[in-house]
Every structure is written in C-alpha cells, then in structure tokens.
C-alpha cells in the first residue's frame, strides 16, 4: 500500500503558482484569440459570397479534423521548416490552441446566428433599422444567449487542453509538475495535486457559468 506524503508538495507551492499563472495566461489569450477567429469565421460561414463562404468552410473543416497535439507540433516545428518563420513556443501554443478552438467556435457562432428566425431581422428592417442595428440590437443579443453556454464550456476544455502545450516546453502547471517529479520522484502526490487543482478550477468555472446563464435568460 502506497503511503502519500503530502508534505513533499510544500516546498514547491511557489513553483506551482507560477505554472498555474502560465496556464491561465496561455488559456485566456488562446481563448480570446479563438473567440475573435471563431466570430469572424462564423459570420463568414453564413455569408452568401461563395469565396468568403468557401474559405471559412475550408478553415473550419481543416482545423476540426487535425488533432490538437498534431497541430501544435506542426505549427511549432513544421511551419518554420516550410516558411522559415520561427515562432516562440508561446506563440505557437497560442496559435495552435486558438486556431483549433476557433474552428469549433465558428460552428457555435454560425449555429447561434442561424438559430434566430429570419423574421426577427425582417421585422426590424421594416421598422427602418439599418443592417448593423439589426445585428447588434436584435440578432446578436438573442444569439449570445444561445452561444454563452458552449463558449463557457470551450474555456473549461481550453484550461485542460493547455496541458498539451507542455510538449512545446511551455512551463504551465503540468510541465512544472513533470519537472518537480524529475527532482523528487513523488509522481503520485504531484499528479494527484495537479488533478485536484484542475478539478477545482473546472467545477468552479462551470458553476459560475450556470449563474451567468440564469441571469441572462429571456423571461418566458
């Protein structure tokens, strides 16, 4: 029977905190990047212009098909070989996570926009509203309520998928754990602790999300 010695964690709390900080930094920047890419690609995917539609679909299909880990490795090592452009590990990590999640979020945005009946926009148009007003006052406020839950869930996944950028050498929480294990040979304590940190983070975030959802729900 293995005996846990939780005390071995104590000297490393500062190191863990720095790892966690990097996890947040990568996940938040990558999530914001994926939101921007997803919104643009999602609106483009509802476009009637065949060229814009095709580009958007090609991006969505490609990045949804490539496994995240493969994408990360390819952007970090492959792109510099093909194009000569060298990314730092951090940039490659953000690009890999952001483009992968952007493709997924594009579908979320597209579905959200298309879920709003055409008559909503048409009614607003007949009142004399401009297309921009229709989008910002009528369509987006309704679409956001549909989109918020999957957006929140995407961030929960993003937090966890950030462990993958450890393969690029980014010292996020999991990578920090690996380094500590190499020093003190206490993998059970270290990885259990990391798992618990993720558990608390994701459950806490999901709970917060539920509260936001009830707040913004449309009265029925």
């Amino acid at each position, binding site marked *: 029977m293995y005996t846990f010695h939780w005390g071995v964690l104590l000297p490393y709390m500062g190191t863990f905190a720095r790892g966690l900080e990097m996890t947040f930094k990568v996940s938040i920047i990558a999530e914001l990047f994926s939101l921007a890419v997803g919104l643009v690609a999602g609106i483009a995917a509802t476009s009637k212009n065949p060229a814009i539609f095709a580009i958007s679909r090609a991006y969505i299909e490609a990045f949804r098909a490539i496994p995240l880990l493969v994408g990360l490795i390819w952007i970090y090592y492959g792109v510099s070989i093909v194009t000569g452009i060298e990314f730092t590990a951090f940039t490659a990590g953000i690009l890999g996570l952001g483009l992968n999640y952007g493709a997924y979020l594009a579908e979320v945005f597209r579905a959200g926009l298309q879920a709003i*009946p055409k*008559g*909503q926009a*048409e*009614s*607003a*148009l*007949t*009142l*004399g*509203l*401009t297309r921009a*007003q229709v989008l910002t*006052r*009528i369509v987006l*406020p*309704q679409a956001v*309520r549909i989109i918020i839950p999957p957006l929140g869930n995407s961030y929960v996944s993003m937090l966890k998928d950030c462990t993958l950028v450890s393969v690029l050498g980014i010292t996020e929480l999991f990578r920090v754990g690996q380094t500590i294990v190499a020093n003190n040979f206490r993998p059970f304590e270290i990885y259990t602790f990391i798992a618990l940190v993720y558990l608390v983070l994701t459950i806490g975030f999901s709970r917060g999300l539920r509260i936001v959802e009830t707040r913004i729900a*449309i*009265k*029925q």
Partner: protein
Amino acid sequence: MEVCTGEVVVIIGPSGSGKSTLLRCVCGLEKLDKGTIYVDGQRVANTLTLRGKVGMVFQDLHTFPHMSVLDNISLGPRLVKKFPKAKAERIANELLELVDLKDKRKAYPGELSGGQRQRVAIARSLAMGPKLMLFDEITSALDRELVMDVLQLMKKLAEEGMTMLVVTHELWFAANVAHRVVFFDEGRIVEEGPPGEIFSSPREKRTRSFIGEISMPTMINPSEGR
C-alpha cells in the same frame, strides 16, 4: 394596382399565388425584377429609405423576445427617428392603450399569448407612424379563440382611417371591413371588386372555385356567438 389613402384592401388567393411576395415588395424586403412601387409619392427601393413608412406584420410571431413590450414598441422611434427615450415611451404607452395591453408594458413576449404578441407587433409598426400597414396572414398562427381580438383591432385601425393591405383567409374580415377584395392567382390579379360582389357573384371561374373552397360559414361574425 392602386390603393387609396384610407382604403382597406384584402388580398385572397391560393398559397403560392404571390400574395406574401407582393407585401414583401411593398415594404422593401424584396428586390423588384421589374416595375415600380410608390408609397405616399415615394418610390420603394428598400426598407432603409422607407424608415418605417410602411408597417409590416408577419404571420409568425416576430416580437423581439429579449425586450419588454414597451421596448419592443419604442425601439423604432428611438433608433430610427432618434427620439429621446421619454418621447418614444410616451408614443409606446399611447399605442399600448390602443391595442389594449397597458398592463403588459413590462412583460416579455414569452409571457404573452399569441394574440397579445401580434397586437404588440402591430403597435410596434404603428409606432413609426406608417402611411400604410401590411398584414400577412397575421392570424393564421393563432389559436381560434385569439383570432377575433386581433381582427377587432385591425377593424378599429381601419375605422380610424389607416390604409391597409391585408392578406387573410378570414372571410369575416374581408366581408365586413374591406373596401375592396382582390383575388390573386399565379402572381396575377384575377379579379377585384367590393367584397359583396366578389363573394356573392364572382365573374371568374377560378375566383368562384377558390371562394367555394374556403367555405362560407366562417363569414358569420364569430363574435355574435359569444
């Protein structure tokens, strides 16, 4: 085809005959292949240039679900006419009185019945001070018992002198409110005339058979049975 100021014209005809398309053209939602439409001397190009001059109410209930009834109605005056909030809400409150929904001003469309929502949609269009109101089968999606409230409101509008172009299968409305009935088929006007004439002695065979199909008993005023 011409519609005079204060005239109520009812358009009837089989589905796919182009009734809705006609209304969508008049309010600027469709691009015209050929021909021109004038409303109040202004050539209809798109919804933006009309600025709410032509009000349109759809069959499906398209009130804005994320806004209160008051905000639904005051939205147009505020965004398009740039009225201050207080003025826009005063207009909305007057219209809520007209459509008999004063106590629902704070409610959201999801809390209202279909009939109430259509009355909000009517008030929302009226808030822009339209010269012409278009109604595209606006009672078709409603439960039978809610239809009459909406029809009575339309009758009241007609009596106040609103110019109206109405697509409906409610023969009671056509018979009792319309000044003129137009029968549409395959995108063309087959026959038009006063409701009495069209319903009792249609000249065209197609008109006769269509009116036979939508059955006369509904012409009896349903409110008399209450």
